[in-house]
């Protein structure tokens, strides 16, 4: 099964992964702040992930690991 994990402490909340996701299942967290002081990106519906790795391809900070 497709699985996406975010190394949240590295995330700067730029949102490029949110735009890149074809399934629109990534969002910037509204109720969380990481060690850097940013609101990190998080996956909202893991079930719908197709492991295309578009999010990780556009992530400038190597936050995302994609498994299948």
């Amino acid at each position, binding site marked *: 099964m497709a699985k996406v994990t975010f190394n949240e*402490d*590295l995330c*700067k*909340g*730029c*949102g*490029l992964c949110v*735009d*890149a996701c074809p399934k629109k299942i990534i969002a910037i967290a509204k109720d969380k702040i990481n060690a*850097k002081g*940013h609101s990190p990106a998080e996956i909202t519906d893991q079930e719908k992930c197709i*492991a295309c*790795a*578009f999010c*990780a*391809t*556009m*992530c*400038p*900070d*190597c936050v*995302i*690991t*994609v*498994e*299948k």
Partner: protein
Amino acid sequence: MVVFEKPKALTDAPFHYCPGCTHGIIHRLVAEALDELGVTGKAVGVAPVGCAVMAYNYFACDMVEAAHGRAPAVATGLKRCMPENVIFTYQGDGDLASIGMAETVHSATRNENITIIFVNNAIYGMTGGQMAPTSLPGQVTQTSPYGRDVATAGYPVKVSEMLSTLDGPEYIERVAVNSVKNVKAAKKAIKKAFQNQIEGKGFSLIEVVSTCPTNWGMTPSNALKWLEENMLPYYPLGVYKDRSAAKKEDE
């Protein structure tokens, strides 16, 4: 099965770049190319002056810091002393196209067997958003508050077009990192630039059209759109010089 993870040629140090800065993507592409070609252990990178000055903290290979713009000269020395090693420079537009123009042009015309990654984001990022040689006509920067006036500031330098007129260089290509498709194409180009060096073909330069959300004054997402709508028409993507391919066609 892991489909995507951080390449081994990058250290665990978190990038200091602003949120959404595409330097991070380009760092990763260089690291992936080094890993895939199996040359991380014998790679030596030359860091520039500019936002990428601390690239030496991020690549898990030997790194040298050059004086402003002099990375191609340092890389020339390294490559001539250590021809078995893979030498690359990672430079921005203020570094490569302004103060380092002489070193860039002359290392290209000598066809030094090095790889240059040239990040063009049309502005001086580290010093706070001044006009760069590559800033677009009419572009508003700290030092061109009414937009770049070509009557007094001249026109942007098109590095790939200019270097491709020389007989020296082996490979010149311009790529961008504004979409998944373009990032994948950029990866292919960067890998080819390293492959050329390993095969002893000579000077390869990849110009990567990049963003600077902070100094352009945009969100990261809008910066990618601005790149596509404004930079790509002025800086068309494509292969500008490929001497080996041209030679094959002649035969």
